[in-house]
């Protein structure tokens, strides 16, 4: 079973992220693998380990520093990685990235493409779905549990609008994974040492075969009009008095202000 995992390097959201003049303040930020993509790597490794055969290939489109994310994924146990890096991708949106991935992955032999259900920075959750469409592959999003794995099909659970759905998916296919599926493993020291020796292919725009007109500003379908910091959370309200008094106060607010029983 050969699996491709799409990963995205994002800003570590545990840090204080600031916006100035409509742009992200880059200073002081750390970059990490988007947490759902870590689960995607874990899922791929679990499948390959359970089948006992195959390779996990990581693919990212991102600046030079995104190689760190690939190295970490290799240290977790992935077998090889492809880093597509070119200023021509700057300004791409989900649509443009999906187009690019479709081109980059088109000729590569694989049984599954897995990504996180959304990226931790944009929370859009669009790229993998569009990629499946462009590659004409079946897809299952928001996968919460894996069932039987066969060479040509996969049984899985996905979180749907009305509860959990159990789906049988023919392969090759595209999956996006929920963070309840697995806990991502930590990179081992042995893994870190081995990562250095694993193949990491670097491609620029031309080398990737992607048409420059389909990515970057030229290829995007959406424009970020405005980037603003979220409003600071308001402090909570503290109710004082005995139980009867505080319960009354809370109920009063729920009924009359929040109107939850309206």
């Amino acid at each position: 079973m050969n699996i491709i995992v799409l990963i995205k390097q994002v800003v570590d959201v545990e840090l204080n992220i600031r916006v100035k003049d409509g742009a992200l303040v880059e200073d002081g930020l750390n970059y990490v693998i988007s947490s759902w993509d870590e689960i995607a790597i874990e899922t791929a490794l679990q499948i390959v380990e359970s089948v006992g055969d195959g390779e996990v290939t990581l693919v990212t489109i991102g600046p030079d520093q995104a190689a760190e994310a690939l190295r970490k994924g290799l240290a977790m146990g992935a077998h090889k990685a492809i880093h597509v890096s070119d200023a021509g991708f700057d300004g791409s949106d989900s649509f443009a990235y999906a187009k690019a991935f479709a081109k980059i992955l088109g000729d590569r032999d694989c049984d599954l493409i897995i990504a996180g259900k959304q990226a931790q920075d944009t929370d859009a959750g669009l790229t993998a779905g569009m990629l499946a469409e462009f590659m004409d592959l079946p897809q299952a999003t928001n996968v919460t549990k894996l069932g039987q794995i066969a060479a040509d099909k996969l049984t899985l659970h996905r979180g749907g609008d009305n509860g959990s759905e159990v789906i049988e998916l023919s392969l090759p296919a595209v999956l996006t994974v929920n963070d309840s599926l697995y806990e991502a493993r930590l990179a081992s020291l042995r893994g870190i040492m081995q990562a250095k020796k694993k193949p990491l292919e670097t491609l620029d725009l031309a080398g990737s075969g992607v048409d420059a007109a389909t990515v970057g500003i030229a290829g995007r379908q959406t424009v970020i009009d405005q980037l603003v910091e979220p409003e600071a959370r308001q402090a909570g309200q503290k109710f004082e008095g005995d139980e009867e008094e505080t319960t009354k106060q809370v109920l009063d607010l729920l009924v009359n202000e929040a109107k939850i029983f309206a």
Partner: protein
Amino acid sequence: MSSTEFKVDRRDIQFVVNEVFEAEKLCEFPNFSDFDMDTFHLIIEEAAHFAEKVIVPLNAVGDSEGCVLKEGQVVTPKGFKEAWQQMGENGWIGLNVPPEFGGQGVPELVSTAATDALVSSNQAFLIIRFLTSGAVNLIKTFGSQEQKATYCEKMATGKWAGTMCLTEPNAGTAVGDIITTATKEGDHYLIKGTKMFISSGDHDFTDNIIHMVLARLPDAPPGPKGISLFIVPKIRHDGTPNDVTVVNLEHKMGIHGSPTCLLSFGDNKQCHGELLQAENQGMSQMFQMMNESRLQIGLQGLAASAAAYEFALSYANERVQGIAIQHGKDQNAARSLIVEHPDVKRMLMSIKATTEGLRGLMYACGYFTDMCTHGPEDTREHYQNLLDLSIPIAKAFGTDEGFQAACLGIQVLGGVGYTRDFPLEQNARDAKIGSIYEGANGVQALDLVGRKFNMKNGALLQSLQQELKYFEQITIPKEIQGMLDEWNSYQDLLFESIQNLRELTKSGGPQGYVLYATNMLALMGDVLCAFYLLKQALVAQNKFEALEAEAASRESLLEESTDARFYWNKVRTAEHYILVLLPRALSNARIIKNGSFASLQAKLELTI
């Protein structure tokens, strides 16, 4: 980040490893040719990640739950066993152990940094790792091929754990007085005796525990020369339990997550031990392993200081109290964060300077270890000298100053720092043991002035003198020159004080010579920490100037660039150490010069 949630200071650790000690240069040595800068970076990053994800959450529970002795077996706090197994599987136990013995052979400099990241998150949890890697190193250095094959890999990967059984009820610091016996019987020895204060003497982490036991053969000469070292597994090779009994579990001030045991060997005359290499070599074998184990305890001191700084600074940035002094008595002025009060800032700066000075000292020991083992042949002796001289200082100064910094951290928080609602009081309680175990700090001072000063006709001090000339060959930015001049005067003071200490032998004999060994060690510790901070400040100043050259103004640079603020603060930290902390070296120098024997002459007794 909150004042109760610990994060590893990756930036400072990476700075000292990569920008100050330039770890990448170690990759030129054949043993480290498999490494590169990116790998070092990732090792430290992932050690920090492991610490935060796996070990940090166990720190409080380890303290509150502690270890329990149940039916003769120690049960450790919830989650400890799983964390240990994960640490072994992920390679963090044997990271500096050579690959042929089951480790990864990471350079000591980087291993020291990774251990710094790991230990600062949970002092109690890491102790068993120190002991296990110490035991592995003993067996890999002195063991037979069979012993190496039996034990090393299993221990380096955490399947088995190790202990060091030295102390007995009547032989602690004076380890030469031990009375545990070993009697040859067929192909093994029968061990009989009691060992106390044995860290990780029993636990539920592993299938087997490998005790390294000091014992005496029936015909052995008295004192340290008659001590041999034995491997005593809890479970024998045939799967039967060895005759090792946990008699008691100590109830301690801190490190509750680390089981400290009273062990009895051979109650039923069935405790089998294997001799390590040769009879009566135990003490010299132990001595050869002490550098590593003492450095690790020094790291515990650094850890306490690092944690104190982080918790105290986070709290000082959250806590509003009082009005900043510049607002005078204006009661309508906005209340200030306590970080804005000068006295709080001073305390924070002292903890920061201690942390970063100690970090320099500890990592230097790691670097010296690499250089004296793998560096160019013609410099190996120089680095060995520096290592041997620095180790007692790293251990004793590291743990003393680490504990002081931990206490100062509590002070920053005030009343809440003294409560169990914040991790500062646990940090201080856990840190206190550092000055006591692995050779009490007084013994480290004796080792320094008694052995190390006189070893090889003073060659160790000559190596230090040569090393401290580092700044003479370098262009010094003017921001650094003032503090360098100041530090230079302390360098002179250090060597003068060594002479003054030697003078005490004339008037007070050997007693007089060792009376102020602790002051000598503290003086050296301060001068060395200031030296390593100056080295850091030099790198930082050059990098700051490069950033400033590209910036619109210093103000905007400091406002906008985290890197610039890091380098700027580093220079201020060095200045604080040299102008605010280092002057206590004057006091130590004066004490040595005064050479009072009042304490020796006093007839101390209780007058109750």
